[in-house]
């Protein structure tokens, strides 16, 4: 009995499938049924008044009802196909991501095991050592990429789970900057960050905020082909928000590309010419996270001069 009732809970079913009511096939089916009944009643009232023979009246009722049923079914079928395609797309990303992770964990752990030989009796030749480092770096890069794909699939399936807590933005930024300094130096970018004297704590999801901060720092470094300084600042914003920003002296974003910058898989032509590697997912993920956390994200940029990316998170007043 409970199962029957559950099957009848169309609204719940639509919610589970992440579909709006009016684009949800089971709901539309119920609506279609109601419309059909209404049409039958109206055509019956109409034909019983104006048509003499009851057979013809019945035929009209059946005809109208059949027409509505057939047309309605086509429409519902179309919606069902779209909904199914959407579901499969999210599922596909998640399956691909998990399947890709298996060989990646083999790479990672095997390289870890090789790494342990370093201190061993047989020294590793320098060239081999460099190759191992290269493999390690690229394995981590790919793991990062797969993790991003998974985040996107969660965002798309509206399955983003946030763990909202007090976030020490200054501490977290300090750590991210410190770990990025060597990589930035290799690109001749000097990363600067002066922790503010007094700053209210922010509210957010620490892991997600870390990803955003790392993404924005990586972008500033990556798209500064001529080096220069990239400056990170943190300031309170009208007591309700804490603002994080990074200013670089890099490529900048062409005006025509600016409105697409937060779109999934978008990469500016500028960026592609200078750096072929990049998923076009970092900023999309950053914006999805920030919006889910009740913050804001944006940027100002001038081609050839550089960009400033910023985000704001609500302050932790509790």
């Amino acid at each position, binding site marked *: 009995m409970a199962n029957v009732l559950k099957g009848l809970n169309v609204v719940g079913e639509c919610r589970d499938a992440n579909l709006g009511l009016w684009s949800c096939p089971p709901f539309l089916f119920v609506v279609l049924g109601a419309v059909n009944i209404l049409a039958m009643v109206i055509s019956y009232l109409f034909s019983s008044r104006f048509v003499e023979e009851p057979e013809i009246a019945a035929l009209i009722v059946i005809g109208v009802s059949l027409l509505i049923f057939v047309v309605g079914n086509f429409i519902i079928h179309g919606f069902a196909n779209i909904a199914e395609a959407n579901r499969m797309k999210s599922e596909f990303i*998640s399956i691909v991501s*998990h399947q890709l*992770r*298996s060989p*990646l*964990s*083999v790479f*990672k*752990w*095997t390289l*870890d*095991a090789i790494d*342990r030989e370093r201190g061993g009796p047989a020294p590793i030749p320098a060239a081999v050592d460099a190759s191992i480092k290269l493999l390690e770096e690229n394995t981590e890069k790919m*793991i990062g990429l*797969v*993790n991003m794909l*998974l985040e996107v699939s969660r965002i798309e399936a509206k*399955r983003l*789970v946030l763990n909202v807590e007090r976030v020490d933005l200054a501490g977290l930024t300090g750590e991210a900057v410190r770990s990025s300094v060597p990589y930035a130096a290799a690109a001749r970018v000097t990363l600067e960050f002066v922790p503010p004297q007094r700053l209210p704590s922010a509210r957010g999801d620490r892991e997600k905020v870390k990803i955003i901060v790392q993404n924005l720092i990586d972008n500033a470094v990556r798209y500064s082909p001529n080096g220069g300084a990239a400056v990170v600042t943190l300031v309170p914003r009208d007591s309700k928000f804490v603002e994080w920003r990074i200013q670089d002296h890099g490529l900048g974003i062409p005006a025509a590309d600016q409105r697409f910058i937060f779109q999934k898989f978008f990469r500016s032509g500028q960026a592609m010419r200078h750096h072929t590697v990049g998923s076009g997912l970092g900023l999309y993920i950053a914006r999805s996270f920030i919006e889910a956390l009740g913050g804001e994200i944006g940027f100002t940029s001038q081609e050839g001069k550089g960009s400033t990316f910023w985000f704001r998170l609500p302050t932790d007043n509790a």
Partner: protein
Amino acid sequence: MAKKILFIEDDPALQKALGNFLREQGYDVHAAADGAEGLAMAARELPDLILLDLILPGMHGLEVLKAMRRDETLQAVPVMVLTNVESNESIEQAIELGARAYLVKTSYSLDEVLSKIQGVLGGGPE
């Protein structure tokens, strides 16, 4: 007596990488390639710790965990889930079924896995 670890994992390359590493650390590592074999081996060997993958041929890792929770002798054996599946449902289910930790393989280095194992076993291999 070295502490006994049962590693239930269908990927031979991972069996080798983590299995050999743990043996080097002095653990007595037993390998099972699927869920049913893992369960049988757990009952026979009564390990100090079980490392359990989720996507396994035949019997899913969560089913293995469920079966272990129903078994009087296996109930007390700590289980660490070691997988690449990262969904909130499976994390919740595994923890509900009593898993002591849920580690995503690509997020942990061998050394980090080792320290988690030491954490659960309360010390080194002896």
